[in-house]
């Protein structure tokens, strides 16, 4: 068999979407970011909105998200992505605007910007990657770190008495009238990836309806920060993270109206 046979369109069974470019990603092997980037590319291609989409990248591991998806991007100061997205969407109301934020970015330093963008019901999509740790800076404790979970700034494990409880931002944000859709997904299995894809697509579709903010949390692994193998990190996530952050829809105002 020659290479030309393999790449023969007739033999094609799987193709990368055209929005994701060929630049090698800087993410660690086993990291969830790459899968979520691909899903975003899939959805932007499927909805044919590459020319109408503006992304806002965070500070954190996904700071370079703008290098991998061929759409217009702005890179925000740490936590401020929802403020940027607010202005972009208000000034360009027919565009699709999304933020891509980690748990340190969204739940700690950017909690105010996130809460108020959601409370104003900005018609944006928030992709929230929650791996319970600061990955980029080397594995420090985040607001989302589980009780007892070790990090470089909680070497003996997170303690409630000192550090408070893990913060569940999507649950909190679901209580706001400005928010129309909140869901919690993961990308650790083929089935989970498919569900997450549907959730991201729904969020983008909802954002065009001007009904408020859509939030897709992706409970994610950080195997290098968690000091585990990629496979071990997936298992640890299923066994530990999902009980604190259970998967599924938390709020879907538009779906509820249909029923």
């Amino acid at each position, binding site marked *: 068999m020659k290479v030309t046979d393999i790449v023969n369109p007739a033999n094609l069974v799987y193709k990368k979407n055209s929005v994701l470019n060929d630049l090698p990603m800087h993410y660690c092997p086993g990291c969830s970011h790459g899968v979520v980037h691909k899903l975003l590319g899939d959805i932007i291609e499927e909805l044919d909105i590459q*020319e109408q989409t503006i992304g806002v990248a965070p500070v954190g591991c996904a*700071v370079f998200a*703008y290098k991998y998806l061929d759409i217009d991007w*702005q890179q925000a100061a740490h936590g*401020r992505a929802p403020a940027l997205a607010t202005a972009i969407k*208000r000034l*360009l109301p027919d565009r699709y605007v999304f933020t891509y934020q980690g748990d340190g970015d969204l739940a700690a330093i950017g909690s105010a910007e996130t809460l108020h963008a959601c409370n104003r019901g900005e018609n944006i999509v928030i992709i929230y990657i929650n791996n319970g740790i600061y990955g980029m800076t080397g594995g420090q404790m985040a607001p989302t770190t589980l009780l007892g979970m070790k990090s470089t700034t909680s070497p003996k494990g997170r303690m409630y008495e000192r550090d408070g409880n893990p913060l569940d931002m999507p649950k909190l944000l679901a209580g706001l009238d400005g928010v129309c859709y909140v869901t919690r997904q993961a990308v650790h299995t083929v089935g989970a990836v498919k569900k997450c894809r549907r959730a991201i697509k729904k969020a983008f579709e909802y954002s065009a309806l001007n009904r408020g903010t859509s939030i897709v949390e992706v409970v994610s692994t950080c195997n290098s920060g968690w000091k585990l193998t990629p496979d071990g990190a997936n298992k640890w996530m299923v066994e530990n993270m999902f009980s604190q952050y259970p998967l599924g829809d938390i709020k879907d105002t538009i779906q509820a109206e249909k029923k």
Partner: protein
Amino acid sequence: MLMKGNEAIAHAAIRCGCDGYFGYPITPQSEVMETLMELEPWNTTGMVVLQAESEVASINMVYGAAGCGKKAMTSSSSPGVSLMQEGISYMAGAELPGVIVNVMRGGPGLGTIQPSQADYFQAVKGGGHGDYKMPTLAPASVQEMADLTVLAFDLAFKYRTPTMLLADGIIGQMMEKVVLPPYQSRLTEDEIRVKCPWATLGKPHGKKPNHITSLELLSEDMENLNKRLQTRYRILEKEEVRFEEIACEDADYVFVAFGISARVCQKAVEIARNEGIKAGLLRPITLYPFPVEKIKELSNRVKGFISVELSAGQMVEDVRLAVNGKVPVEFYGRMGGVVPSPNEAFNALKDKLIQ
């Protein structure tokens, strides 16, 4: 028309085709957003006006809007502008145009709501992190609040830089006659794509995407960005210096003052002239770029300078750098919201330079 300085800013912003205002209330500048909300420009020019949850959010909304090539602005007063420093540094690094109005009040800390000029260093030396400069305009009248708002946008876009209108509580609050600038249309998206090819409006088919960012991990790349900025600052320093001279032609002694201090010193010049002392006033309109060459030239023929400021002495350092020891440079200032009278300024001139 008769109006407050803060109101003039709001009118001028709408008239010069501003696309978005994002702000948070703080005395003594809340009339800027209040006036905009009264005028409802979204019904006329389509300008967006939004009250943000903080100054941090405001400046980042300006960043987001500016990244789309839109004319965006915010306004605040000293404590609020301190909160914006991160965003201003990011805008400088990402080469984004935008206008920040600081109607200064006394500090440090929560300070007072009375007028001050103690944020001079913060504005002209780069209040945020990193090597950047920001064009800084100092209005001394309600008319200039309007005119310099328009100029601030022009400079911001010409040099792709955040630009500050550095006013004080008196200029913001006092009422004077003003002739408002003519209406300019807001730019269309097609016009923005031509004027700001870097703007993130959505990637056109077949074109490379635009990225607004201030991040470069390779130090050589980051140095190149810095060099580009510094080259731009050198052009600014050559092309954009603005000042006003009052009675400097034959002056022996020159007051250097901006904003409300310049109005006080203008009267002090009259008092001095009546007493037979040949005094003049140099009023920098651009604090950055500073009128260095003008001061150098004056220092060849005057006997001394006195910088009068509502601070403990900030601009005086730049005057001394420009004079470079040729003649004495003295300072007189009041702090914490106190404004000196013309007689105080005149007496300071006599006590410090003449006797």
